């Protein structure tokens, strides 16, 4: 059953002389209980997408969609005040670089209590403390961390605190924005295990935004591939990663050292990202695609259902 459905989502940034079209026509449906990875390199729009959904875009950013249905309700057109009611309660986000998300001069408990109060102003201190202690034990944090300052904690612990903050109202959907990127390898791995467990125990649906295919392979059951603001492929992880259909997905996988024999076979992708203030009319990957044909420069491919997944490529039949 679909927990969240996005249709034709666009996000633009207005700059002095031009408008950057960071996300274009994004359409995706995420089922309950899924852990969906969104993979993209810089400029793919993956973080922008997350910020847009949470309505935390900067001043010059604005989002449009034909619909965004969360839990049966279209939230694309509700007011900011209405959205504030469900932000953190039905959907929350956890950022990377936990260090910069927390104030260095306040104790952890005070900051978290603050967040709780801003959504449920009647919460008493003792109740909040009980809730947070319980939450901390779930994410393997000692209760005494509540009375510590951010600089006294390690990167892994800080990230766990951010995750527990995201879970404090037991939302249905949690967005994890590159949460393991800045951590050490072993801490990363431990955190991924934690997240898997939390998703099970809390019956969450999670969106994991990352640039690392390995992380997606270990954590997620479904994956969406984004490039220059567009969704190019979406499906089960075993399908998309081990048998990619879209040429960009193929190239991305081919550029990962794991799937190439020692010292050979690694291929980069020639060319650069298109200018997002003037994105291509037809296929966004045309300039860099090794399989391109003339038609790819003229016709805009649509996201279609193919062999159990969604793909955007005019030549998908021949290439798969």
């Amino acid at each position: 059953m679909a927990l969240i459905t996005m249709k034709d989502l666009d996000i633009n940034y207005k700059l002095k002389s031009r408008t950057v079209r960071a996300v274009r026509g994004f359409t995706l449906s995420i089922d309950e209980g899924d852990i969906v990875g969104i993979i993209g390199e810089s400029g793919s729009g993956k973080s922008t997408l997350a910020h847009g959904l949470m309505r935390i875009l900067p001043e010059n950013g604005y989002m449009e969609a034909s619909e965004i249905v969360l839990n049966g309700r279209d939230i694309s057109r509700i007011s900011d005040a209405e959205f504030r009611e469900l932000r953190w309660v039905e959907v929350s986000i956890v950022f990377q670089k936990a260090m910069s998300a927390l104030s260095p001069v306040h104790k952890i408990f005070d900051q978290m209590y603050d967040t709780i109060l801003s959504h449920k102003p009647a919460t008493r201190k003792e109740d909040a403390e009980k809730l947070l202690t319980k939450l901390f034990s779930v994410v393997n944090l000692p209760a005494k961390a509540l009375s510590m300052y951010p600089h006294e904690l390690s990167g892994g612990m800080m990230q766990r605190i951010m995750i527990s903050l995201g879970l404090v109202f037991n939302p249905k959907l949690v967005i994890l924005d590159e949460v393991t990127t800045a951590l050490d390898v072993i801490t990363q791995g431990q955190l991924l295990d934690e997240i898997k467990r939390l998703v099970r125990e809390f019956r969450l649906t999670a969106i994991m935004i990352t640039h690392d295919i390995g992380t997606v392979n270990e954590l997620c059951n479904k994956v969406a591939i984004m490039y220059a603001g567009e969704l190019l492929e979406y499906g089960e992880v075993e399908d998309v990663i081990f048998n990619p259909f879209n040429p960009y997905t193929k190239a991305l996988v081919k550029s990962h050292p794991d799937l190439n024999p020692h010292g050979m076979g690694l291929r980069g992708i020639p060319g650069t990202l298109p200018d997002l203030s003037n994105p291509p009319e037809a296929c966004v990957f045309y300039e860099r695609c090794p399989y391109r044909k003339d038609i790819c420069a003229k016709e805009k491919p649509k996201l279609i259902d193919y062999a159990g997944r969604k793909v955007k490529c005019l030549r998908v039949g021949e290439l798969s």
Partner: protein
Amino acid sequence: MSTEMLKVKNLVKYFPVRKIGKKQYVKAVDDLTFSIKTGEIFGVLGESGCGKTTLGRVINRLEMEQSGEIQFLGQSISGREYKEDKYFRRKMQMIFQNPYDSFDPRYMIYKSMDLPMKINMVGIDQKRRLEKILETMNHAKLTPAESLLTRYPHELSGGQLQRISILRSMLLNPRFVVADECVSMLDVSVRADVLNLLLQVHKELDSSMLFITHDISVATYICDTIMVLYAGKIMEIGSSNDILNSPLHPYSKALVSYSPTIRKGEKERFRITGEVVTPIDPPPGCRFASRCPVAKEKCTVEEPKLRTIDNNRQVACHFV
């Protein structure tokens, strides 16, 4: 011809830590002994704080060691600063982690490439140097070369800058290259190009490489031998294949099992607890003892020596 290009013996590098009262030291590199053969790509694998970056800097003489011996091409280079020894400088070069900062922002790329050549008297005059630069760039497919040379660093992408960094070093015809996390800051698909260039250059120069990284996928792809560091000490040395597929040291096992990969199937986690340890006045015994699942009493008393197990395999553990 398999002579030893670099021989390191009992290398020690401490950093003083300012604390009120007694003086403490971070034992960043604590008694390391290893050697690198001609033509070998030698990987240094570890998490943050293990000393890998410090090791690279000491070997390249950007930092002075406290004690220990370094022999390069049969000559001792330790014990004194090689500030202006031109012969040595040409022979050993370093590629740094941040390509965006590797160039003086006020110099055109041409100047940044020409200056090291001029200083080290590579090429007879400006005309010949320019020819060599153009030839090298064209050979590495960094084209159009003339256009790139007249640009400033901020106009180029990370991938281009890093490849130009590699070429800059290569123009000096080094016998030894230290690559310090040189792809960590780059997008996944861009890394492939840089790694391929590194391999290409390595073959053409008949040189050796010290490849520093925290990413096991990259390490096993590019390196012949891998040395695993933890808290300033060597845990294990072996061929990259052995380290990946049959690690012996508990820390290596943990590192391999927690690294996100895209090999098929569920990996068995070699569970360890705790966080990465910074070696400030470490307790006696094995550095890894506090987190090791198979540690016994002996481990907290006696430090394990690096023993040779098979051909080319060395482990520092009491129970292997």
